[in-house]
């Protein structure tokens, strides 16, 4: 068969077809990628929001606990506690195995003590 006829007989434009398919595939992939990115941004946003809400809740709990600690640490409360005759003594860590963390004991008055509550700090006095 002559070459010019063979060209006309085999007229399917394979190259064009593949080019269109390739361009379509690229465009489709880009579109899907765009959608995936958008979806991912949305999902991340929801996660961020959830994390922020958890953070807010934690902060609020922390503030509530801090307010409670401030009230329990207040001189008025400690004074009431002290004058009620009972106070809570913290046990050393090594004794924790046998008992609880806090033990309620009767106040033992120290000879020479003035009976006033005073603030104590964990600072070493200079030798």
């Amino acid at each position: 068969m002559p070459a010019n006829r063979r060209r006309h007989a085999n007229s399917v434009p394979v190259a064009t077809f593949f080019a269109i398919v390739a361009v379509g595939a690229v465009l489709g992939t880009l579109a899907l990628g765009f959608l995936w990115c958008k979806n991912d941004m949305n999902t991340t946003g929801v996660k961020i929001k959830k994390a922020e809400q958890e953070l807010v809740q934690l902060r609020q709990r922390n503030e509530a606990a801090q307010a409670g600690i401030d009230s329990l640490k207040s001189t008025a409360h400690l004074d009431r506690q002290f004058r009620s005759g009972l106070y809570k003594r913290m046990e050393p860590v090594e004794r924790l195995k046998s008992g609880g963390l806090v033990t309620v004991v009767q106040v033992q008055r120290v000879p020479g003590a003035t009976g006033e509550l005073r603030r104590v700090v964990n600072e070493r006095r200079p030798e």
Partner: protein
Amino acid sequence: MNRRARNRAICACVVLVCGFTGFSIRLLYLQVTQYDHYAALARSKRCDRVVLVSRRGLILDRTGEVLVTNGPTKRLVIDGTRLTNPERLADLLVKHLRLDRTEVFQRITKTSYSKQTKKTGPQPYIVVQRNVRVGVAEAIQAELSPAGLDSAELKKQEIRGVSFEDSACRISANGSVLSHPVGYVNSNNTGVDGIERVMEADLRGTDGYRLIERTRKNEEMVRYRGMEVAPRNGNNVCLTIDMGLQMIVEQELAATIKKYDPEGATVIMMDPKTGHILALANRPDYNPNKQEGVDEKARLNLAIQAEYEPGSTFKIVSVAGVLNEGIFSPDSRIGCENGFWAWCKLRDHHAYAELSVNDVLVHSSNIGVAKLAARLGDDRFYEYMHRFGFGDQTGIALPGEIKGTVKPPYLWTSISMTRMPMGHEVTVTPIQMAAAFSVIANGGMLMTPLVVQSVTDEHGKVVKSYAPNAVRRVISTKTAEQVRDALIEVASKKGTAKDAQVSGFVVAGKTGTAQKLVGGRYSNEKSVCSFVGFMPAEDPAFVLLVLIDDPKAPREKSVGGLVAGPVFSRISERAAAYLGLQPTEPVPAETIIAKGGKTGGNVRRR
């Protein structure tokens, strides 16, 4: 084309042109003329500005103890335009918040006219309850959309349009202690009284905000977040108050109230060298954590908002005046008319022919002090009253301070000059009297009473600090020492304030007993008893004022030396132990009483 068909075509064209022209004009009107209105309407549908709440600053005492803190709460807000199931919501709020059902239902279904939509309809922002505890808010939130229902039933039961905004309430860690100086805030967390009000600018933070966009379901689209400005928390305010001393004052005052059941009482402890207020307590008081039903009288800070006739404590003005002007020396003799000065009908409690200037104070002679003031003269006496700070505000950083009443000489009557030196016909505030005694304790310098020591940011860095402020020199150092020596004798065995003594220390002070005006006449039954003094006299650590208004005691015992003096003594003794003051006087062995049981007991001086 025939003529008829052509006419039809023209008509159609004209109609089309007119129609499209109309549409175009309408489009121009909507897109150009009304652009702002519709753009804002669209923005309001999807955009929102979320407030990022700042934290109000703390109030601390001089040692850093937290006096006022914040507790997280929620503000229950309803969007009436989106609200579903108002009946069920009302039931829910009654259950969790104990609100009146009829009232709450009316509130959540209330309608109003909207300028934006030009229609009457449900309100878009209704604050139903402030300061809802976080736990309660979470419980309500959980019940808004009940779990375990199918979609049809859920749609029927679900409550929409309810939200909780972050908020905070103030918590006074010590309850009613220091309620007057610290004050309280209103429902918007704005200071109304006390330090909360005066230091509002420092305590209040600046709220931040975030611009967001919402979906149709009112959920935030995080990826479309706009500008965000972080909140700035308020600064902390450190007071000059010492909670250790405050508690001593509170306990002794409570015991006094129990014993005498007075109408009111005030105790002020002040550092005379700096003007720092170390403790301040009034009765009646209130608990800032429970604002409902508080009597308005209990909100009065008597230390700065109550004026009273001071009685004999005012005698220091005349004595200091004559000594400072060099008119008399402490040993100069003054005739005391044997207890009754006839022309002005002035009496002394005890009859004296004559007394030294010092003894006029020691024996609290009304006649003697009237004669001293007479020698000083009207104008100079009036000037000394002002120099001691009477008739003027002290400048303490608390709201509502009054000036008291010191009449100018042209308003005096013929006997005013005999009554004012003994503390009648003048009214003063307790803080003025404490500041005036600080003049004697501080070598003649009048200091501004300070309540605020410094302002720090949330990390503890000092932003502002308030240095002691000397107002003026009132009297010379020598005169101050001379008056102090006289005041020491007042609190000695021969003076009127024997019960104010503190073992181991030298006390200087003056008693005051003023009859109260009832129905325009001085009452024989009601009096204001006070004692003002300082300790140790040679180097005062504090000035202490004790004022008891109308103690319920027998008439002869209702005097400053017997009512207020012992309170001064007890507070001073405990304060000296707290401050670690070294006794300067020997303590007699027989006055040391050993108390206690098996442990050997605590040793208490009496």
